[in-house]
């Protein structure tokens, strides 16, 4: 029983990180229909920037995260303006390839700047606490609380503010949004900003319990794709639910099935789902 609750808590932690990354991915997909393969690179850069600002300038953990979110968000905007904006009317295969090009560039860049070594990030929240009979580190609690807080903020932003409404309008119908006077270019930039920021935030939160290295985004981005297919491409609640489903199945699978093959679970899940539902679990026709 103890192991089960511990693993469930772990699943919640992993799921929170996955959900945040998947949210950024699904936002961009919902609006621009781009499967942004470079999202994993943004995640990786987010962790590195937090790490560097903390080590080099001795910033507080939270200030470092804020800087990282801002920088990576701006990088996302830059990506949109320089690359994806130029490809708005190109065949869909071009977006994918361009995104892969960006991914390769950013990874090589990170390796050039920070080297290929695995690094660990220190956190001011390292202490171990006891909670409902569980022994957990403060950082893990922080990941859960932080992720859920950001999700609520995002939800309020999208549903209750005017700018958020423009994003939803554009996701529902691009031409329609354009007709009622929404500046679709600005909304696209804003979406990329949000998406990059979410990736950086997720990476900064999870980096202390994982390691930081140039290839750290690979598995995360692949799993984020699994999640948004699970939850329906472009669906925001779907990304959150999918993230937690994957988090739980992974942590339970690692304990009760095999630790070696735990990474395969996500992909097998996807392969099985797409085999029966080629357009994802909660696909909405004519999105």
């Amino acid at each position, binding site marked *: 029983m103890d192991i089960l609750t511990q693993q469930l808590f772990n699943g919640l932690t992993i799921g929170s990180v996955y959900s945040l990354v998947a949210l950024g991915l699904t936002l961009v*997909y919902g609006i621009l*229909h781009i*499967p942004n393969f470079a999202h994993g690179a943004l995640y990786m850069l987010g962790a590195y920037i937090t790490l560097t600002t903390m080590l080099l300038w001795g910033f507080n953990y939270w200030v470092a995260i804020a800087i990282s979110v801002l920088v990576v968000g701006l990088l996302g905007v830059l990506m949109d303006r320089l*690359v994806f904006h*130029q*490809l708005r*009317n*190109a*065949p*869909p*295969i*071009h977006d*994918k*390839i*361009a995104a*892969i*090009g*960006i*991914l*390769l*560039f*950013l*990874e*090589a*860049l990170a*390796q*050039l700047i920070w080297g*290929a070594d695995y690094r660990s990030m220190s956190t001011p929240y390292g202490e171990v606490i006891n909670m409902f009979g569980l022994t957990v580190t403060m950082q893990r609690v922080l990941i859960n609380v932080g992720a859920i807080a950001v999700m609520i903020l995002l939800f309020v932003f999208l549903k209750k503010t005017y700018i958020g409404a423009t994003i939803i309008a554009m996701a529902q119908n691009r031409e329609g949004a354009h007709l009622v006077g929404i500046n679709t270019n600005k909304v696209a930039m804003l979406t990329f900003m949000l998406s990059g920021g979410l990736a950086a935030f997720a990476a900064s939160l999870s980096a202390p319990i994982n390691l930081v290295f140039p290839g750290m985004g*690979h598995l995360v981005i*692949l799993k984020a*794709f*699994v999640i948004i*297919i699970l939850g329906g*491409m472009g669906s925001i609640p779907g990304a959150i639910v999918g993230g937690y489903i994957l988090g739980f199945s992974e942590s339970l699978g690692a304990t009760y099935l095999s630790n*070696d*093959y735990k*990474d*395969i679970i996500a*992909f*097998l899940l*996807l*392969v099985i789902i*797409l*085999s029966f539902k*080629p*357009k*994802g679990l909660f696909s909405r026709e004519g999105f």
Partner: protein
Amino acid sequence: MAALLRKRVFIIGLIGLAVLFPLIIQNEYFLHVLTLAFIWMIAVYGLNLLAGYTGYLSLAHAGFFAIGAYALGLLTVKAGMNYWIALVLACLITSGIGFLVGLVALRTREHFFAIYTLCVGYIIYLVIDKWDSLTGGVRGLIGIPAPANIGPVSFENPLSQYYFILAFLLLTILVMYRIVHSLTGRTFMAIRNSEELAQTLGISTMKNKLLVFVLSTFFAGLAGALYASFIRFIGPDIGYITIIFDLLTYLLVGGIGTLAGPVVGTFLVVWVSQSLQFLQDYRMLIFGPLLTLLIIFYPRGIVGAFYEWKMKRTGKKRRQARPDRRKPEPTYAATQTSSEKKVKEG
């Protein structure tokens, strides 16, 4: 007719150059690099048939390359089979797995297909990496034999390996040429331009897509098997995502959906990589942005850009000869993109 003759002379000249190359430049290192480039070209041709001619971007190609390599390696090293039987079996095994994957994968489309195959590729990599008892895991597979002798012909030295693989490459190109210029090839292109339209015309799209997928994995498997017997050591790295990115770079630089693209692209990129050896792990600093810029400005690569330039030139000449004809003929590239756009919007 004259153009056709010129083209034929050019191609024969190129083949002659490839055959004579080891005699002109006696440098084992260059020979090695070029042989390796030939192997990649075979794999890229497989990718080109699927992504370029049929419009389905498969990111599991490196996985199938690895399956071919491991099938040959395991059959010869662990089962002690004759090389030639193992080579044929390796290709068949790869296409067999390709058939099974294709059956399911091809139900998905566009982004879903790319993501699905990306995951399949990753599963293949993980299985190879973790299945220690069969594949040797991260330690890899050592001691794969070179091709067995046929009568007096031995394939032990680099020179004979070079010709051996060149022969396979030429065969691949010939097969590709025949496929692309046959009705089947046209069917693939019809599917690329508009799947709905192709279906309306009575084309069984699933059957054809499955065929092209199996063909593509066959060439991936062949390239993998040749790679295994050429390098003689394989590790799980050959199935990793970076390999598919390399293959994509070769294909895009050369020109996706063109016959000469894979040769031109692979040769150029491999050659440039060799001269940029000091960059090693950082070569993607150059190739990453190059990939992105190419897809924005020259989506059909060097070969595509060359054809476009040629077409514009002949169009201009024709208009000068007959000034009364105002409307220029639509170029191939233009018709393709407009129809694809329609698909995207529809």
